[in-house]
């Protein structure tokens, strides 16, 4: 699962990079900070990026999750501080989604 998510986010970053002058580094993807002091996105581009990730997840796993929810934003450790944390958040959301669907 984790590997598929890393690959999926890598693809989205590649798509975003096509239109960026200042490319987002892809070699240490998990350590890339998305938003904040060292973040690669401003708030608007962050939303666009997360929307692309949501779509990719929907296409690949056929699950709809929100990465821009109040829950995502209000976490003590922000899922947007590093790609690895975003992946953790996605996994949690997908698990929760699976449980709700099963129940």
């Amino acid at each position, binding site marked *: 699962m984790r590997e598929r998510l890393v690959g999926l986010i890598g693809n989205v970053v590649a798509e975003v990079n096509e*239109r960026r002058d200042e490319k987002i580094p892809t070699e240490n993807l998990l350590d890339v900070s998305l938003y904040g002091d060292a973040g690669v996105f401003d*708030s*608007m581009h*962050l*939303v*666009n990026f*997360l*929307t692309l990730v949501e*779509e990719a997840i929907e*296409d690949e796993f056929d699950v709809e999750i*929100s990465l*821009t*929810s*109040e829950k*995502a*934003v*209000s976490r003590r450790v922000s899922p947007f501080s590093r790609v690895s944390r975003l992946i953790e958040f996605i996994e949690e959301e997908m698990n929760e989604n699976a449980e709700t669907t099963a129940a």
Partner: protein
Amino acid sequence: MSDELDRRDAPDRRDELAERFARLGDRPAVIDKGRTHSYGDLAHAIRTTADRLRERGVAPHEAVVLNADFSFGSIATLLALYLNRNVVVPLVAFTEGALRTVNDSCAPRHLVKVADDGSELVVEPMAAADPGAQAGTEPGAATPEAYRPLVEAGAAGLVLLSSGSTGAPKAILHNLDTLVAEKAGSGDRVGSRTTNILMFLLFDHIGGINSLLGVFKVNGTAVLPARRTPEEICALIEEHGIRLLPTSPTFLNLILIGDYHRKHDLSSLRMISYGTEPMPEELLRRLHTALPRARLLQTFGTSETGISATTSESSESTYFRISDENVRYRIVDGELQLKSRTQFMGYLNYPDDSLTEDGWFRTGDLVEEKEDGFLKVKGRAKEVINVGGEKVLPLELESILLGSPLIDDCVVYGRPNSITGQSVCVDVKPSGPMTRAEARRHVREFLEGKVEPFKLPAKVNLVEELRVSERFKKQRIRA
């Protein structure tokens, strides 16, 4: 009460209308399902229906629900209720929500249904919501406070339900005497040739009522559609040589997309008036190319103020002027405000917070005004998308995207998120096969350089059909 009775004996404009129709004799008034009914027939039907209503206990100033779409019978019944000074609540679709609103706010006494040709009339009692106002009590005894000014003026009323995209529909009360006097005219504008006008807009909508009264103003002929599909409407235009088609931009686009303007001869059309929602400039350009002989006129109006007479700058321009001596306008913080003689009397179920303290109606439409007084609708205030403080108007993007040969139609709306408040989304109906990734790329490339970066949609969805309301408006507000 005696005062009211006195007035009933006085000569009445209401009777003048039926009188005028009677004098027009064989002139065609209504074409309904291929059958032509003359003005003489209509005058007769109005009078006999008014008699039948009275016989069945429908007293003046009682609220009556008229459950019907446009038909010869429903038109005659509407005017009979006007003759009888009732408060008419026309309802095309008798949905649970509409019924609840009517019961809760309109104090209805009777439900009337009528055969399309007017031959049969069914009058059923309706339980009034007000416990003190049960059906069968003395007429006028429990007239709701809101109807009091109508009773005092000896006037008929009209209640229109707004299509409310959120919450319960608003019940909007009009003075029907005023509407008829302003919009149906005196009938002195009679040409030898009758003008056929298509009743595309709905019977329970201000646009539909306005179209109907507009027919009477020119002693024209109302052609009634059985179904409001592009195919049926275009076939009717060809069959009856329709000269005026009042409709909406969304419906006009459906005609173009389906190529119905090529399958039918629409050359009789002298004027297409479009309203109810803003017109994307690109669509207007396409329309003018497809139907060069028809003048394209932007109408402007609201359920609350009635439809204003307008002049478009040209058939290719979405700028228009309000050229109606009964209507004054002003622009406050970008929003158009109106004051008209056909202004509504109030909402029966909502506070009048859409009125300013000095009695102007806030339309909720954002407009810009040129130096020469021409106006342009930029969108609805409540449809503005706020992306982290930056404002995006859906119409601007839709208008540009319609210029793409790969896009048949689209609708832009805001999607809430907890980071920037909202983000821009677009549902695209492509003209051919396309994947979501291709659509996203195309939308971005098509808009880049034409709009500021914050307006670029974050999300692009492919859809087979756009969400269109029963009144042929695009739906941008999502639940």
